[in-house]
């Protein structure tokens, strides 16, 4: 017993430090050292800190940039609140950093949040995009390709809420960089919107299957208030998108007079960030060996349509029929979405006339 007691007491005695000898390790110390050729932290990207100069003029914006870069990883934070707050912070910072180079990494890490599960985060992101668009449209234009990809990914998302909200993003995008969108991804976006609205693109092909061309999810949740609201927003988006893509803006008389003949246009600096995007010089796409076999619509999916008549032709050929059908049934239902559907139908009729003329 006595031995045990002394042993116990030893635990609580303070070890005497000796000169020239290292501090003795505790008996329960865990060895955490390890050897590795390389340690990789994939979700912590290297931060290229801008050299902190003492210049008083740059100091503020540079610190801001560094701060933004530090906060980028918070976009992947597990807590939805943190993500939202990060986006809100970004939004506040937008006026200061809009013309700096840190806007690209910021957008790159923000874009995936279009498919975020949390509604608040998506709303904050929408506000952020809005803010960016208000300050400089060209930023969104520059990133239009990535934007389209993520919006499309949201449109086909399996969670209905994400799917419904993707219309909002598209609406925002159409507002600021509509021209790029309709040029480069006319068919893709239309198909996506059809999917969101629950409409079938080609009714004729589905008759060999049992399905009604309508998703079961959209049938079940058709009558909820949320769905109704979202339907209205999405219809508006579709209306905006179709108008932007098919109806030429009425040329301003004063502007016309100022503008030089069209040949002159080619020799001045273009006013869009990527004027030759449609050539797809720096884009890789997978080859489709069986290109001939698919339907015409599949072929068009990656083709950029540069002018209004071409877009109108595609619209009239593939999308007009189902759109008219669905809008007429929506008008019959009435309500807010009925009104929007009505104006959409009017637009479609004008487009048809334009196409025929």
């Amino acid at each position, binding site marked *: 017993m006595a031995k045990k007691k002394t042993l116990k007491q030893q635990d609580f005695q303070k070890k005497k430090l000796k000169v020239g000898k290292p501090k003795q390790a505790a008996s329960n110390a865990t060895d955490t050292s390890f050897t590795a050729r390389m340690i990789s932290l994939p979700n912590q990207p290297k931060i290229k800190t801008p050299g902190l100069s003492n210049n008083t003029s740059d100091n503020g914006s540079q610190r801001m940039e560094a701060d933004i870069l530090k906060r980028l990883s918070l976009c992947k934070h597990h807590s939805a609140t943190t993500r939202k707050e990060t986006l809100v912070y970004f939004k506040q910072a937008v006026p200061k950093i809009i013309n700096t180079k840190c806007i690209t990494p910021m957008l790159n890490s923000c874009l995936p949040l279009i498919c975020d599960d949390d509604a608040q985060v998506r709303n904050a992101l929408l506000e952020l995009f809005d803010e960016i668009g208000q300050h400089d449209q060209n930023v969104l234009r520059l990133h239009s390709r990535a934007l389209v990809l993520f919006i*499309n990914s949201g449109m*086909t998302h*399996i969670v209905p809420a994400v799917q419904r909200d993707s219309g909002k993003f598209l609406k925002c995008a159409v507002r600021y960089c509509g021209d790029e969108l309709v040029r480069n991804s006319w068919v893709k976006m239309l198909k996506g919107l059809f*999917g969101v609205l629950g409409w079938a693109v080609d009714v004729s092909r589905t008759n060999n299957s049992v399905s009604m061309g309508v998703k079961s999810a959209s049938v079940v949740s058709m009558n909820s208030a949320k769905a109704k609201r979202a339907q209205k927003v999405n219809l508006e988006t579709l209306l905006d998108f179709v108008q932007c893509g098919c109806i030429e803006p009425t040329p301003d008389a004063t502007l016309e007079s100022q503008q030089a003949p069209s040949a002159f246009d080619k020799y001045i600096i273009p006013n869009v960030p990527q004027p030759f995007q449609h050539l797809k010089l720096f884009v890789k796409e*997978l080859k489709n060996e069986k290109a001939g076999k698919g339907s015409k619509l599949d072929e068009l999916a990656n083709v950029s349509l540069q002018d209004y008549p071409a877009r109108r032709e595609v619209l009239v050929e593939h999308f007009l029929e189902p759109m008219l059908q669905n809008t007429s049934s929506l008008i019959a239902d009435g309500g807010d979405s009925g009104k929007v559907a009505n104006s959409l139908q009017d637009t479609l009729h004008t487009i048809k006339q334009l196409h025929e003329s």
Partner: protein
Amino acid sequence: MVRKSRAAILPTNVILLQNLVKRDPQSYREEFLQQYSHYESLRDIFMLSAMENQSADDSNTTQFVELVGFVSQVCSCFPEETANFPNELKQLVLEYHRSLPFEVREKIISSLTMLRNKGVISAETLIQTMFPLLVAYSSHSNALGTNSHAKEVRKLVYNTLISLLKSCNTGAKNQKLNRSTQAICFNLLDQPDSQGVWAARLTRELWRRGIWDDSRAVEIMTQAALHDDVKIAYSGVLFFLGADKEREENFEENSDDEDIDMDALRHKMQINKKSSKRGKKLDSALKAVKKKKAGPKTPQGYLNFSAIHLLRDPQGFADKLFTKQLSSKSNNRFDLDQKIALMQLLSRLIGTHKLMVLGFYSFFLKYLTPKQRDVTKILAAAAQASHDLIPPETIMVLVRKIADEFVSDGVASEVAAAGLNTIREICSRAPLAIDETLLQDLTEYKGSKAKGVSMAAKSLIALYREAAPEMLKRKDRGKVASMDIQESNREGGESKRPKFGVENNVQGIAGIELLAKWQKDNENAEAEDEDNDDNWEIDEDHVEDEDEEDEGEWVTVESDKEYDVDMGESDGEDKEKDESEDGAQKEKALDPESAFKELATSRVLTPADFAKLEELRTEQGVARLMGVRNEETVDSDRLVGPLKHRKSTKEERLASIMEGREGREKFGSRKKNRDQQRSTTNREKERKKNYVMMIHKRSVKGKQKMSLRDRQKVLRQHITKQKKKGH
């Protein structure tokens, strides 16, 4: 209830949707299309991020992985819509594998495998995808990223390839696929860098499993063995040395898995209570047995040809192997073990096919010193490489060198024994490789005090008593040999001493005269037995029949319709035998030619006959002289001879020590047990508890106060319990 039914039709995750789509593809077409376009958008995102060298999002990765799995699972339901899907996967993994995360790569590879299994893509397509990956991720290709997981990918791809080829070759062989794969292997070996190592590894593995067993596979390994790269060449050499053994071992392992006794199982089913579990057990056993029976006896139907026998051009291969790898100036790149393996392979080739690589024997001279590391292996190779078609002068140099270096009074007895044994092995293959004086010198060692040496010398004498007794000293010749010599001297015939170039090969079947003789003896004995039987039978029946049979042929009794046909034949033979027996005295010494004619024309030799023939030949000691042992490998360990006190290695010593410690835990240290972290059990606590604390407890006191009857009861219970425990 409402919620539940809703959940059943509303797919909220991909797995659920997959289940629904599989059950009813037509109804869930729209959902599938949505997910397919989601896959497409994610794929584009991945490609974009690959272009810009960013790491893709984690959530995106998991989603993408999920979707790739989903689409490949259900794409057989929608062949039109997903026509391009496999092609896309292929392009993705081939062109973007550097920038894709490991999970995605892994998933794509497994999905492609699944698509192959479902028959969506052909096996050729899969192989065309896998080989570039294998090459890209082999360790020598540079510029792999930090998180490339090269090792895992390599392993995955390699296993995929093996299982693909295995599944394609079960049942009938898919020759077309094998050919194309082998063509890829040839191409890999043609390339100067070390990617050919994969061809070698793959071929070896497939050979081991008996999937490839044709000469094309062997040809691949021939190219590998002649490759410039050391690693590839060595793997090729090892293939020829060891692959067949590996294959045999592999099949032995497979074959001796548990044998199910069906009768016992059935019996158990009748006796025991029937339950569904037992029924299932019987079913599965039945299945296993059926499968075993259905499969070919030799798996994959392979014929037991060793790789060396399947060589297309053994002489050319051996020449190239010697000039290019072993004796060229650049042979420094091989270390000693590899050189020895090369020597072993070459000598085995030469021995098996009786090839001529004359430079090989002088090459050995450099290595034949007692101090040389692993010299027994080299000695064995030297012995293996000699055969009777090589000019004796060439081998004589070798024998002289061995005799000089190894067999003298100054060296250790093991060395001398090894040298003598090697010379014996060489001379058993090429009896002319030694001259008379040297042989007689060497035989003097029969009186050595070291057992190994004297045994080796005596075996040399025994060999030459049969091969060329004239070369031995008179007293060593032995009774039979010296009598033969005397006889031939008397008759004035030429001596039977072997000569170079005079082939002693046989027409027909070697040793058939022995079989004929043996059979004759046996048949005589049998015939006597038969006669006896007949006598017995006949005695029982009628005595008259016996007379008739003895007298002549006209035995056919018409009333006896069911007369055995065999009996008639044996009667005929009996007659023949009677005739031949008369002549047997004259031609007692059958010459092989006539024996062959007689036997081979009269009947078909059965495997049992051949077995007997082999037995008889070994009895005669002919087999050794015929050079049959050429194909046998010379065991390098046996060359040293028997060792009484061999120094054991450390492992053996340790093993013997550990053996002595078995079952003595009580006396050993408990050091190991102390490390096991655990708390004391309740029983331990109970046992260690202070005696004074326990003595006043009721449970203890109560025992003392128990009545005699109760005490008896408890005791009895205790006894039965202990008995049940088995104490």
